[in-house]
């Protein structure tokens, strides 16, 4: 790498510099951006080949592939940024099949004029997240659009993983009688982003829960290989995720409001903004559906992991021709927990 640096007249200005159209033009400027910024941060054998693709051995078993685009605004928020979010998001999508994530690809759409210092911050955050998760970013792409045609940076990540033998996890497998578990309190990500966007400040700021959940999933699958369904309740929150599952599986759900964990500051801010935490996005939580007789074992396994410490059994799957997700309210009545209609909080991930 260092041997080739002489083709660049001087190093990228990562303090005052900004993205220029030439950074996506396929010429020397693009090569420099890739080498001094992306490669420096993501450094691994696959990237060092500087091929347009990554070659890797395929382990035996079923492969899983998932992709996720990230357009969050603002790019930096309490507890995270678009960089680590784009790594966690795709790892989690792969992990929700019960899979072990193996590799990531990342694609950047940069807006002309975007600060290189901010881009470096984002890329380094991605690199840290990927390294912590043990899932390397092995290939990527960069495009630049004219000023005003983007919003700083959009990132798409794609991941592949492999499902362990004997694991078959899919929303369609949810069955009446199954238990519904949730790995922790709801709403932190959506509100952290919203609070930052609307300049709402609090004594104890709400932090995004963005996290890679594959290790929690591995611990869960090791304890209860017969888990029927996993889903991370991102946009649309718990409510939308459960309605999706109910629809895919042709079942209904019955929840107990009192059992659903929501942290006090999140509850208070939701109250203030007129939001329902059941519909607010999460980036480090999962829903698990398993046979009722495995629920306690699964709960114990979840609580033994740092990302599932506040896990809870929140309800059960029932037979319901209408596919309704109903909830016993803490007040003592019943209500429907419907799909989200419209968009509650745009540009959340």
């Amino acid at each position: 790498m260092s041997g080739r640096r002489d083709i660049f007249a001087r190093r990228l200005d990562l303090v005052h510099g900004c993205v220029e159209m030439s950074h996506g033009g396929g010429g020397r400027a693009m090569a420099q951006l890739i080498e001094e910024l992306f490669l420096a941060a993501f450094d691994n054998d696959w990237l060092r080949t500087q091929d347009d693709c990554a070659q890797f051995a395929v382990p035996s078993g079923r492969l899983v592939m998932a992709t996720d685009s990230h357009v969050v605004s603002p790019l930096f928020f309490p507890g995270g940024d678009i960089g680590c979010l784009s790594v966690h998001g795709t790892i989690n999508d792969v992990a929700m099949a019960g899979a072990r994530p193996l590799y990531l690809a990342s694609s950047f759409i940069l807006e002309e004029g975007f600060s290189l210092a901010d881009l470096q911050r984002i890329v380094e955050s991605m690199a840290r997240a990927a390294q912590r998760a043990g899932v390397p970013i092995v290939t990527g792409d960069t495009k630049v659009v004219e000023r005003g045609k983007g919003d700083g940076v959009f990132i798409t990540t794609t991941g592949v993983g492999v499902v362990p033998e004997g694991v078959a996890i899919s929303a369609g497998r949810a069955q009446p009688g199954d238990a519904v578990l949730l790995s922790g309190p709801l709403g932190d990500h959506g509100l952290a982003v919203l609070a930052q966007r609307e300049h709402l400040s609090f004594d104890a700021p709400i932090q995004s829960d963005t996290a890679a959940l594959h290790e929690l999933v591995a611990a869960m699958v090791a304890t209860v290989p017969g888990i029927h369904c996993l889903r991370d309740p991102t946009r649309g929150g718990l409510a939308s995720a459960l309605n999706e599952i109910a629809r895919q599986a042709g079942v209904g759900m019955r929840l107990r409001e009192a059992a659903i964990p929501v942290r006090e500051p999140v509850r208070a801010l939701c109250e203030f903004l007129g939001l329902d935490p059941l519909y607010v996005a999460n980036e480090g939580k999962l829903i698990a559906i398993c046979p009722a007789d495995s629920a306690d074992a699964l709960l114990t396994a979840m609580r033994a992991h740092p990302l599932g410490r506040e896990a809870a059994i929140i309800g059960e799957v029932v037979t319901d021709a209408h596919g309704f997700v109903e909830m016993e309210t803490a007040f003592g009545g019943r209500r429907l927990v419907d799909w989200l209609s419209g968009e509650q909080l745009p540009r959340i991930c």
Partner: protein
Amino acid sequence: MKYLDEFRDGALARGIAARIRQEVEPNRRYALMEFCGGHTHAICRYGIEDLLPDNVRLIHGPGCPVCVLPSGRLQAAIELVERERVVLCSYGDLLRVPGAHGDTLLKVKARGADVRMVYSISDALDIARAEPKRQVVFFAIGFETTTPPTAVAIQQAQREGLGNFSVYCNHVLTPPALRALLGIAPSPSVLPSPLAKEKSGTRVQESVDGFIGPAHVSTIIGSQPYEFVAADYRRPLVIAGFEPLDVLQAISMLIRQINASKAEVENEYTRAVGAEGNRKAQRLMAEVFTLRPTFEWRGLGWLPNSALAIRPEFAEWDAEHRFDIPAIRATDHKACACGEVLRGVKRPQDCTVFGTACTPDHPLGSCMVSAEGACAAYYHYGRFRQAAAS
């Protein structure tokens, strides 16, 4: 959350519910109308109806600002933003309400019009300050609760000489709507006639035995303006907060009045409402607004002295003065029963298009859009009841 959790306490709710069950007379029917969409929302979200005996029936009233705005006024705003290329600032709920021909502010926004969702009128003021070359119009709707902030913003714009800011005023008043409802309601009901029938066979206004009175509106106007409900129409009214225990407690108070054949204005929401209301807010409203001789309400028709216009001395900040905004008569979708729902004549699920042609994602009428709309509340929280009944 202090001051909230104690008003959502399930154990206290069970206590009040038990008392209500003891006190209701089995052969009597209690038809109670909650005026406000905020109450409707609490009733559906917390499942309050599950705690009530079968002969206590809740009827949803017209207290939803987005719902009662007639299509013509909305269509005028849609045409204004497209024709004059202004920045139109609106609350989010309004964006999806159909105007004439099914057009919405969201659709004109997608076509390129500058429609911006704001949380309050002060956001619109900020936009006007930040973009002095653009004309910024705030689409003001709401009852007495949201009117004082509009008054403050108009005064602020005057003080700053903010020449590019104006208000499209659609503020309406609560007491005239209550009076209109009472004017069309027959006398209190006795079992077993839940819905009175006219000779022609069409439904008329269901009897209302008592009212759950507005919460936030009453913090501004106080309890005094409702006295006519008791004095002229012999119906009890209990002002109640928007928390579920407030609603349950108000129902209990109404039942006691009805059992004792009383008709009084009572105040459950004493932590926020006094008899006289907020004098300062009332003064602000009087300084900036004047009564319109008449105004159209969706569902209730043209009601005299029921809405506010901006006073001539603030005409510079009145969008209806600054721009040519023609009066538009637009009819609602012919299958939409929002009018009857707003009058309490029909329940949301009685509408033939409820949940089929009309859903929150594809609303035909305003009651399916607003967070305070009865149809939206039923659709989001209570649809399973309809399914269970069928």
